[in-house]
């Protein structure tokens, strides 16, 4: 076997999610074609400027509940993923994105832009500071509200390890009725999208800490170099 290890049953959402209206015209009708990865076995090693403090912008402090988010990125063989680029974006404390197409009637915050970028260390660990995002309405169904969440985009050791996901917060009542969260069939897999409050990560008199660990896909067998690709890190 030289491909990716298969996903655990129910751990990933299907493309078509009837309760999430936007999937209706965007989910493919044909089943995906299984392919032996070739160039996908390698991936970009990206080096862009890090920005690990989202809690201030333009010399101002963001409004809202300051939080520290940290965790570890490993692959599904439990090995740390070092040097992984993590891109972050989120709504402000009032539930509004700094985005021209966000029309939610909530205030923008001049101290908050809502975008960050961090890299994992040799042990796969990352950390950033931000404010807790607010919930916001969306038009998926009557009285639909997204639970508080932070968007994560990750690049791992190979192209097929690419992951875009969302981190949720413990105790959020909106999780029970969110179609995007519930697109993931397996309850345990959904639960792993919810960060854990961590008092040890919390900084006294300053910010609450949340821990969010992430697991990326790994390859069955990793040659030192592929004929078509770059050496694996």
């Amino acid at each position, binding site marked *: 076997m030289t*491909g990716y290890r298969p*996903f*655990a049953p129910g*751990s*990933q*959402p299907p*493309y078509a*999610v009837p309760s*999430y*209206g936007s*999937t*209706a*015209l*965007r*989910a*493919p*009708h*044909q089943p*995906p*074609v*299984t*392919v032996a990865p*070739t*160039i*996908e076995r*390698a*991936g*970009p090693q*990206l080096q862009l400027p890090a920005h690990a403090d989202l809690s201030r912008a333009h010399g101002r402090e963001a409004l809202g509940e300051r939080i520290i988010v940290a965790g570890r990125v*490993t692959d*599904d063989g*439990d090995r740390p993923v070092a040097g992984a680029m993590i891109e972050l*974006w989120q709504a402000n404390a009032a539930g509004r*994105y700094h*985005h021209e*197409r966000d029309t939610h009637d909530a205030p923008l915050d001049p101290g908050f*832009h*809502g*975008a960050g970028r961090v890299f994992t260390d040799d042990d796969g660990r990352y950390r950033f500071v931000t404010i807790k995002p607010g919930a916001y309405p969306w038009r998926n169904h009557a009285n639909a509200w997204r639970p508080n969440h932070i*968007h994560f*985009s990750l690049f791992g050791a190979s*192209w097929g390890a*690419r*992951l*875009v*996901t*969302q981190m949720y917060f413990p105790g959020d009542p909106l999780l029970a009725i969110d179609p*995007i*969260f519930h697109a*993931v069939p397996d309850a*345990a*897999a*959904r639960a*792993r*999208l919810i960060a854990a409050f961590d008092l040890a990560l919390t900084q006294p008199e300053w910010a609450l800490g949340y821990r969010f660990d*992430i*697991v*990326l896909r790994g390859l069955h067998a990793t040659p030192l170099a592929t004929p*078509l690709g*770059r050496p694996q890190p």
Partner: protein
Amino acid sequence: MTAVTASQTIGPFWHSLADPALADLTRGVAPDDLAGGVPGSVPGSVPGSVIELSGQVLDGAGAPVSDACVEIWQATPVAAGFVGWGRCATDGSGGFAFRTFAPDTAAPYLAVAILARGLVKPLWTRVYFADTGDALLAALPPARRQTLCAQGEQSRWRWDVRMQGDGETVFLEL
């Protein structure tokens, strides 16, 4: 084994990630025939020619998808300073455009991921610039094979992505 973290949609508000410079993979790198002739400092040069790849992302009703993130990855050419990855946000007509170096003829294709609102996980695919007896293309019926082949020649290529229905692009399970 630990289960891989579940995918979730990139949503409609991801554009803080969308630096237009990321769609030009040749930035800061010169092809061999230009090395030394490009103004400014050039940290590396790449064997081969520059290509432009453009197209449209369309949904199951044939409507342009104006909030998609199109990403490409190519493992070749291997050269100093060439990262091989690019990202382009689709515009109001679903359009995207990349500028990059032609991949080596041994594997004349790019890996592609489409991310968007309404996609709870990426659409994985490839775009080919030639059919050199590739195993994936060979396994597909001709009509479906065509959906992975860019149209054009030499430096300018066109490739549309149909997410659903008639002419649906072949998407992959890696």
